[in-house]
């Protein structure tokens, strides 16, 4: 009922509307153009009505309507042309020409790096005459979940078949250690039970300088586990290294981590001889000779892993800050530099040491000859039980050593001074260098002894541990760097990524994966080197100056320039789109209407 009345009403309305042709033009154009049509049904109905209306008046209006229609079409075509030019040609052209150049950054691959778990495989083999004891140790490990910590996958093996006769015939453990009993491969640790070890030492466990641990029949499995965990695997340090890079605010570095130099491609090693009073005391030291004699083996050993550029210089007339206190002890007078002033010493020294043009971080090793009036000089601790020392280490920077030549040389210019004894000086420097590259001091474990250091000063298993930590550091930093880069790119749209930076990003991703795989394949050395490359690639990508090329042009200024141009041009064009649309619809209706009529 309601429906019927409504349709009849609208029919009435349209009839009334189309009483005169001119009026209908006026009203309809308003209704369909500026405002939206009432609704589709209605309009269709109107259209049919208007058709009949047109038929009534066709004779009077056919000529004028035809010219008007042609005119309208042309205008609409013009509007379409404008809209086409501006929207289809102009806008993409503008977009393309003002676009910030950015090669494809593999965001997905960067995210994938998180999933790639770093896992160091480690194989530990126990050699023993007695199957029972070997199994006992093995079982003990199986029950201990401590070792590994999720970052090291330990694989235990027991071997009782190996002939250990050589162990019996050798005269000392050093001699035994020098023999290549086992393939000395990274990622392997051999535990060897030496029969009658008490011949050599009172301790039950002795750590060799390669990758072998010797233990006696009496050694408890607990000691062995502690030894493996604290000295050899150092999984705790690995976990910490990883965590600290990921969340620097939540974790604090362990002691070794704090001292270790930040990762870099290469390091400069600068030996500085600081001699404040050359006129009072003549000091002679052949630095170059000392470095080759005492550090040569160490640097040679490290060369596949860390590259050093060795430099040396003499600095005269430079004094350390801080007033030493005179100490009268029995018949001796010496000067004491309190421990707490040490931080103030380095800063004034730093400006004279110079960094030069090298782009690598510099490890500074400073030998200081105190002036005569404060000589001999020692560093004293606030704790009374610590004896006065002559050297201190500044984490991630270098080491300073005080050398006190005999006082008899003071003011006695004519006296020919002897050459400095390099051995003592260089041994301290070697110790400091080891700490700075990340080889820790070994905490004491009861019943465990180490064989004397090899000529290089670093044991093979220490090196493995360092490589594991460095590789973790490299891989995690590379991942974090890439992640931050991706985040930055997401936030700041003005950053340019050129082809070279794009290549670096890819290199970092691929090398990271490659490195992780190599490490899993027991190839620690290659894995380490690849991780270093990945780290460096990520760093280069992140710190490339081309990233900043367009950053000084902020977004709001861009729009300040574009809006006065685009607003007045785009508004009429966008408005005309509406009329184009209605023209299009009406055209479609007209054809359908005429079809209807033909039927």
């Amino acid at each position, binding site marked *: 009922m309601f429906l019927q009345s409504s349709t009849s009403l609208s029919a009435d309305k349209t009839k009334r509307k189309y009483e005169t042709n001119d009026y209908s033009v006026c009203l309809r154009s308003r209704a*369909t153009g500026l405002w939206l049509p009432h609704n589709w049904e209605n309009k269709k109905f109107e259209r049919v009505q208007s058709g009949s209306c047109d038929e009534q008046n066709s004779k009077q209006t056919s000529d004028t309507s035809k010219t008007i229609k042609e005119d309208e079409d042309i205008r609409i075509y013009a509007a379409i042309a404008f809209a086409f030019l501006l929207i289809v040609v102009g806008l993409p052209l503008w977009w393309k020409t003002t676009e910030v150049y950015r090669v494809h950054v593999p965001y997905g691959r960067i995210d994938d790096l998180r999933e790639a778990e770093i896992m160091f495989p480690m194989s530990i083999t126990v050699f023993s005459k007695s199957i029972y004891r070997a199994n006992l140790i093995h079982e003990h490990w199986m029950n201990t979940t401590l070792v590994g910590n999720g970052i090291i996958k330990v694989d235990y093996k027991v071997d009782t078949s190996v002939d250990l006769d050589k162990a019996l015939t050798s005269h000392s453990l050093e001699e035994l250690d020098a023999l290549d009993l086992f393939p000395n491969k990274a990622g392997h640790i051999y535990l060897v039970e030496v029969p009658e070890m008490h011949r050599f030492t009172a301790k039950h466990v002795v750590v060799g300088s390669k990758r072998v641990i010797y233990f006696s029949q009496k050694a408890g499995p607990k000691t062995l586990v502690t030894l493996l965990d604290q000295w050899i695997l150092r999984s705790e340090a690995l976990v910490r290294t990883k965590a600290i890079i990921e969340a620097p605010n939540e974790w604090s570095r362990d002691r070794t981590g704090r001292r270790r130099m930040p990762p870099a491609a290469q390091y400069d090693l600068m030996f500085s001889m600081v001699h404040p009073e050359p006129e009072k005391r003549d000091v002679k030291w052949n630095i170059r000779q000392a470095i080759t004699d005492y550090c040569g083996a160490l640097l040679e050993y490290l060369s596949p892993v860390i590259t050093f550029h060795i430099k040396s210089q003499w600095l005269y007339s430079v004094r350390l800050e801080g007033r030493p206190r005179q100490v009268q002890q029995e018949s001796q007078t010496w000067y004491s530099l309190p421990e707490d002033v040490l931080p103030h010493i380095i800063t004034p020294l730093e400006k*004279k040491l110079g960094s030069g043009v090298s782009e690598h971080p510099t490890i500074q090793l400073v030998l200081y000859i105190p002036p005569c009036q404060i000589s001999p000089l020692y560093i004293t601790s606030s704790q009374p039980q610590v004896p006065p020392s002559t050297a201190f280490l500044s984490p991630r920077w270098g080491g300073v050593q005080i050398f006190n030549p005999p006082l008899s040389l003071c003011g006695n210019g004519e006296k020919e001074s002897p050459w400095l004894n390099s051995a003592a000086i260089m041994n301290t420097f070697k110790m400091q260098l080891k700490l700075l590259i990340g080889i820790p001091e070994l905490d004491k474990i009861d019943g465990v002894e180490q064989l004397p250091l090899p000529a290089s000063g670093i044991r093979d298993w220490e090196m493995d541990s360092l490589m594991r930590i460095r590789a973790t550091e490299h891989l995690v930093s590379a991942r974090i760097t890439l992640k931050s880069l991706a985040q930055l790119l997401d936030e700041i749209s003005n950053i340019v990524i050129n082809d070279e930076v794009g290549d670096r990003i890819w290199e970092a991703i691929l090398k990271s994966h490659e490195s992780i795989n190599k490490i899993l394949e027991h190839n620690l050395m290659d894995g380490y080197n690849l991780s270093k490359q990945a780290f460096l690639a990520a760093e280069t990508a992140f710190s490339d100056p081309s990233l900043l090329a367009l950053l000084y042009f902020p977004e709001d200024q861009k729009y300040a320039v574009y809006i006065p141009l685009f607003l007045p041009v785009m508004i009429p064009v966008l408005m005309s789109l509406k009329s184009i649309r209605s023209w299009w619809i009406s055209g479609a209706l007209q054809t359908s209407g005429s079809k209807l009529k033909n039927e």
Partner: protein
Amino acid sequence: MIVWALFTLFVAHVSGLGQSELYGDEFHEELLLKQLPSGHVYAHFQFTTLWENGGDQPNHHCHLFPQSLSEVLHLYNVDEMHLSLTGGLWRHENWGYPIVSAPPGAELWAWFKEGTEDVDKKWTLLSNALSGLFCASLNFINPQQSLNPKYSFAPLGAYDTPSRNRSLLRYSTLPREIVCTENLTPFKKLLPCDSKKGLSSLLSAGYIHNANYHSLGIHVRPQCKDVNCHETVLELRQTVSLVYDLIILGQESRDWSFRKLFGVGLAGSCPLASTSKIYVDCSTNGTSSVYTLTPDPTETINSNRGGYNTVFAVYDIKKTNIINMFSISSTHKGPRVYLLNSPPVLHATRYIVGYGQEHGGIVTKIHNNHWKDLDISLFENIPWFLPIYYHTLKISVNAGKQILKPYAKHYIPGRDRNRPYALELLVTLPPRSITEVYIEFDYSFLKWQEYPPDANHGFYVGAAVITSLLPHTKNYTGIPIDGSTFSSSINASRDTYPVTLHTEILLVTLPTPDFSMPYNVICLACTVVALAFGPLHNHTTKRLQMLDSCEESKGLLASLKLRLKSLLSKSSSEPEKSAPEQKREESKSKEPSQEGDPSCEQKIMKRKKTKGTAAAK
């Protein structure tokens, strides 16, 4: 008053020498004080480091030679390097020749090692490294501003081959560079004794920058080890040249002393120096003015060089027992005598001619006061934004009485933003003549981003360089090429005396735009586009059409009403099935007003959008 005492010791102990034997290096410090004819006092410090091992293979173990500089030299394959940082202009006409000539601002030239690949890159890196080392804006030196002179800047070092490949030379200047304390501090750091001991302790920044002219120089070159010259040593000469105007320093007197010039006395020599000497030129003592030097010099030397005799009072600091502070002072007696200025054999001035901001010309006036011909090479270095016209080059003598033809010309036209204009002329100057070298140029427009801050200050054009060999040593103080220290210039008679002159730098005012212009242009262009586009778009897509008058007269109110109505009718037709009767009543109540509308049938002209549906059917 500074208390001083003078003792001569027979045995001078030099510490640090034992170490020097190992490294094969030595260090000398010297100071020359000279009263110039104009009444100014010229103080020239020279610190020379010679290093045997430095010449050959990369050597990173340094003793007296500064480690940072040695690293730079080896890293960038530099054979020879000359850097000067100068404030003020050396006035050759009044002051004679300096020991080392330098133009105002910064000047750097370097010879790279034979076989160096990619010299331009190495040059950029070198200037960047030096920029960091000396806190100067040398990093603005780039290959686009650098030149490769053909005749000037011959290598000064000792080399195996007599002729060197000229492509290994780079030269550049920064005339606008201002030299100050921040350059002096790193300069002093390179000295083995820093500024703690020795002559370098006299270099206090406050007094140095008071001077009329101050120039820092770093000169590195390979030098012969001995007379036979089978081996070379690396020579580093660090120089500080100062010219003081005593009148400005106060007290209206001709007397000078260390306290007056440097503010401090000397505490002693640098313990690492092999020699530590002060030379006071006393040639004019007794002729033009009479003065006494206190304390008495260690010795007095007569230097007969190239026909001219010079008297030096020498103070050997190593042999002087200094108890408190050491200071040299001169006390004048008698009335002040103003001498007639006797200019040196060769000097030059340069200036700009022309008016307006379109064309101009550069005139270089070279004076030859010698009674014989003098061969010179003139090197003009003109930035690309002053395009010069080679055909306008005119070399006239004595105000156009004679036109000179240069013996050789070398011209490299500049390229915009790429290469400066280089013009080198080898000219023989007639005796007792003034030669004018004139060339025209255009003032060019720069891109707005190329203007420096404070563009209205103007643009500097680097100094022209004149190189010549003088026949005698009038007003000449230079060190012979085979010597390293100032002491080697004593009695050093040679056939000719090489001299390098730097002329004035020029300040050019280029047409400078209003720098808000780019934004104005953007705004104007946008407005024009918008203004043009609007009518164009309207004319092509809209037309004038008739509209009935009642709608027009009702205006906004009517249109609002109509809109409301259409909305209502829309809402009434849509929810037909579910809508309550209320709605129908509402639509019915609107009926009368709708009925009223069609009564207006008058037509008026109104601008109206064309609509597809409006096309009459």
